């Protein structure tokens, strides 16, 4: 029995994929029904509710950055639509090395 994604604390607005999820899948995480619209890999984050630009991304019950674009429930949340509130330069460095 395998789950698709887990939410680490009840405060979180993102869940972490336990396996790669594919477009068209419908999964349930902590009671949230999520329609998957793009491929999201193991260890990456899904929005469990619609997130708007400027919203804090909450994982582990704490903010890990802010949205720079909107994301629907079930959407992928990563460096293309969120950024660090702390050291944005690190994100650019990581992008530069692995673009």
């Amino acid at each position, binding site marked *: *029995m*395998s*789950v698709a994604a*887990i939410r*680490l604390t009840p405060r979180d607005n993102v869940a*972490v*994929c*336990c396996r790669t999820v594919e477009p068209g899948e419908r999964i349930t995480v902590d009671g949230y029904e999520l329609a998957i619209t793009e491929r999201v*890999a*193991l*260890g*990456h*984050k899904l929005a469990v509710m619609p997130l708007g630009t400027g919203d804090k*991304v909450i*994982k*582990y*019950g*704490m*903010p*890990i*950055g802010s949205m720079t674009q909107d994301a629907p429930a079930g959407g992928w*949340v*990563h*460096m293309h639509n*969120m*950024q*660090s*509130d*702390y*050291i944005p330069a*690190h*994100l650019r*460095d*990581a*992008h530069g*090395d*692995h673009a």
Partner: protein
Amino acid sequence: MTGDMAERTWQAWARPDGRKGIRDAIVVVYLVECAHHVARRIVDRMDDPRVQLIGFPGCYPNDYALAMMKALTTHPNVGGVVLLSLGCESFNREALAANAREQGRPVETIVIQQSGGTRGAMEAGIAAVARVRAAADAQAVRAPMRLSELVIGTICGGSDGTSGITGNPAVGRAFDTLVDAGAVCIFEETGEMIGCEGHMAERAATPAVAQDLIASVAQAERYYRAMGYGSFAPGNAEGGLSSQEEKSAGAYAKSGSRPISGVILPAEQAPGPGLYLLDVVPPGDPKFGFPNIVDNAEIGELIACGAHINLFVTGRGSVVGSAISPVIKVAANPEMYARMEGDMDVNAGRILYGEATLDAVGAEIVDLIVAVSGGAQTKSEALGHQEFVLTYKASGSNGPSCLPRVA
């Protein structure tokens, strides 16, 4: 946790300072690399898992190393001490021996230059270890011990994308249970708390502790930046991490959710029950290199702070144990667990497959702590792992208040 767990007791060793130990190690301590071989051969020839090797390689004096050794040789898991000195090194062997003796430990010192060199010192050392072990047994005081008397540390090493979502938060759940039971819990690696200091400060028991937490993380960022050490690597992004604070949060998850009672320094004992951050980064500019060169250097500092057991979360698969205090290895990655089950005490990777909850694995960790405290061997103990590393470091505090405060 049930109330029954907090009431569970096991037989421990009562020490003169009031602390209790879950093991009764006899440590053979080399005080300079030149005495390492003789000390190692003595330990090898004793062939007793209780007789363990620790040491410091440098010839120049270092206040931190002396404070660490004083704390380690009087750790509640240590019953007796044999010091191995070459003779001309700077380490203050007299102060170290006197400190252990004051704490009621049988102590002998072998000086190689005064004992007929390698052969003579080896024979003298073997006889000394046998006498110290017998003296420790003769004076042993056994007494019941419970969760509220434990000091538990945690570190993570060989981390991967799974560490932050399985093993670390599971240890956090165990920490919550232990803190609620009145134990001392210690988390560390301030360099991996960058971005979490605001959240940590909100959890601080007092405003002074909040200031200390923020100051210690600020110093860690300054220190690691000066060392040229960038924490957020491209591989982290590939694994799904999107920001520095997200990566830090994964490590920080080991601390659980309870209030943070204070910041302590290496070799410093927590002043009361609760959750503490061990500030591993020395003050000032980098002086002797990286704060801790390898996981066992951090484990040694946690032990010097009194840790009876350390919880080690690993994703890629570390195999180490430690001298003095058992290491419970928590496998974060289920695929690694399948490959290295013989080295792993807990399979937190089951969380990823939906086969266990964080709470269930947290409870399993607490159960294992009770069993190991009562004498059950960890995997690394059974395999004979007794790693130990101690190197140079500058001493002192980064915080505005030099002593930890208790709420």
